[in-house]
């Protein structure tokens, strides 16, 4: 695990997500306005691209079938009562650049 410099903060508009290819793995990084959050870019349901979803608070809604995934914990918030979750990644900002720990 190490911190990887991804892109300038302004590459991701507020309340949107973008995919980044990191070590052969697609990570979806979201700009929540006050912080960045990162998760695997695959919905646990049918592998939909989470980076293309609409952000709802600290969750994202998958564009394919509207599964809702919490970006802080990676847990699926909708549908309820099922245990799938996506991997989350730590993020930080350094000198205007987003870093992800992967």
């Amino acid at each position, binding site marked *: 695990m190490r911190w990887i410099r*991804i892109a300038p903060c302004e*590459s991701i508009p507020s309340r*949107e997500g*973008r995919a980044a290819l990191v070590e052969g793995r697609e990570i979806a990084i979201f700009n929540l306005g006050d912080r960045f959050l990162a998760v695997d870019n695959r919905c646990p349901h049918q592998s939909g691209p989470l980076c293309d979803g609409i952000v*709802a608070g600290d969750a994202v809604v998958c*564009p*394919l079938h509207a599964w809702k995934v919490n970006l802080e914990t990676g847990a699926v918030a909708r549908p309820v009562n099922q245990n799938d979750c996506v991997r989350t990644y730590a993020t930080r900002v350094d000198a205007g650049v987003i870093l992800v720990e992967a």
Partner: protein
Amino acid sequence: MKRLVVVGNGMAGVACVEQILKHSPQFAITVFGDETHVNYNRILLSSVLAGERSADEITLNTLEWYQNNDIRLRLGVRVVDVNSELKTVSGDDGSVTEYDTLLLATGSSAFKPPIEGLERDGVFAFRTLDDTRQLLDRAGPGVNAVVIGGGLLGLEAARGLQVRGCQVTVVHLMATLMERQLDPDGGSYLAGKMEDLGIRVLLGRSTTAIVGNGHAEGVALEDGTILEADLVVVAAGIRPNVELAYRAGVRVNRGIVVNDWMETSDPDIFAVGECVEHRGTCYGLVAPLLEQGKVLAATITGNKGPIYTGTVQAAKLKIMGVDVFSAGDWSEQHAEPVRYEDRALGIYKKLTVRDGKLAGAILVGDTSDSHRYMDWLRSGTDLTAQRRHLLFPPPASDAGLDIAQMSEGATICGCVGVTKGAIIAAIHDKGVNTLSQLKDATRASTGCGSCTSLCQDILRAVAPDFEEDGRKVLCGCVPFSQDNLREILRSQRLKSVQEVLAIYGNGLGCEVCKPALSYMLDMIWCGDHDEDRSARFINDRVHANIQKDGTFSVVPRIRGGVTSPAELRRIADVADKYHVPMVKITGSQRIDLLGIRKEDLPRVWADLGMPSGQAYTKGVRMVKTCVGTDFCRFGTQDSTSAGIEMERRFEHLYTPHKVKMASVGCPRNCAEATVKDIGLVGQEGGWQVVVGGAAGKSVRKADLLITVETTEAALEAAELFFQYYREHANYLERTYDFVERLGIDRVRKDTVYAPESARAGLLERLQKSKAASHDAWLEGQSPVNPTQFIPLLPIESLPS
């Protein structure tokens, strides 16, 4: 039967009559009301002024209700005298009515402060539906309004007038707004919020005169300032109406004095509501009046027993976006204050604790916990164990949990006094499944309406077949109906989704409300809004239709389904160059290129050199056509040209749901115009314009909108319907649901048969939207942000 005469047709009197009717029938009831309306919800007058409700919507008891209960209703008659010896009341119409039992529910009147010129034209009180109507007549853009009095009513009036376009100034005698409900800190937070809304607030200023030549032109303050004013509202408090009680010889202090059984000093005269004084207190809010009514009903029907012991006073300001709640005794004398404040967010909370129990609460900017505090106030809960968490409850993850945490006895509707247990009982025993059924069964949420969402939450959690009412809210994030929201966006001049969510919602939004609000803003401001792509579905961020594998489909616009060899060659070249896995002829006479990667979209569009077919959005899809008169042996109209022209006029625009159209040259209907959202059906000598057809999830034959002679007239009828649908349908409502909901008669009346000015307005707004629209695929060349179509490439790659 004994004769019961009720003087006063307001909330207190009629609610008391409702309670009396629950006991065994023993009275022939006559109700006098000096207003000409049936009983309405006076608390909601401010929302009528603000345009959130119509006058009809605040009716509490309809004429049928009075008839069904055999109540003789005398509207527009003011009772001017009572003779307690002869037991009669006299009306200002000369009538004399005998009673055995008299109920005074005379309410209160606006206090007239010692100000010169109150009689001038343009000076109003804000107490009745008639006052409200007069204000509505006078209010409008460019009108200067001054509200004298910064209490609950004055502030609500100020906001209502401002929503109507007036420039509003509030002049308040005291140094603190709503000083009866707020401490100085709470008042200053509130003043800040009012100023943020654009309402000027002058505190600690005394008004001396309304100046002007016959009608009001200005308001003079003691310090010599003159405020320009075309309209003056005096809301400087209320005084109990005790005149009749005096005449009847009943004991009166500030109000009509009643004991705990609601009896006055005369055994045959009773009183209820704002006109009474109980244990030295006169109440001006609705909850106490209803509690009094219940006790009085028992006493008056010979079931004397229950007593009224006073009410914990609680008040909520009903201004959207300005949350203020106050209850109990919040003075800090002999109490321990607990505070929280955040200037930047405009949140101020103060609780006072006395002997380990909650004594009072003030909440400004966030009133979400008001029900919890009311519960503690009413029940006198010992708070020692929760002392560290008074202002911060453990966050509840869902509404169901909130409900589960509430005790059965917790009061949900403070106005009518309905507990959670009573609501659950109604759900189980009376089969209540909707909010309106709940209102009928329990009267909950018929007062100030602030418990509506809580009632909905209980229904959602408990009712087996919960259904949202017809006026259902858009979603939990912005709990307003779409009608309501459109009105709010217009009147409040809101132009961005985040702004709407911040002021009227939870500040966050979700996948349901964000696209809906995006649509409304674009439609209302004819494209002149702050477009926020984060609030759009991915299809509208990259202008293509996402597929199950995360790739996209591309459908160029082929107007009327008419293409050319050159276009077809370019499409074929693109399919080759980008290794498009599937090229498909769609059901809409177009060509779909499936399996395109997001990052290839801009180049694909550039290579195609054709505009977007909007096959991915809630917008104008296409006009399917037949070959019309050019080649067909049977064609009677040039349906191909008409269809292409219709597509040109509407293309690039967003609509509540997708809009599919067709144009056919004869009634053989080869392009299936009668199952489209809008269809032009050519016939000998003209066109039939049909709307609301469907051949998807539902199948519905379109309704005939109008028959016209020329192609231009047909196109204009289509334009009228198209814009009308854009402006009035709910987001995600197809035309077939829309037309069915409104009825084709209403649609015709509001479009093709509408007055000239209304038709011109529709066409003008359509033109304006059209002028502001553009081919979305041009963004391929100039993206709205550099990463609109491309993934991020890490600056730094891992060492291998």
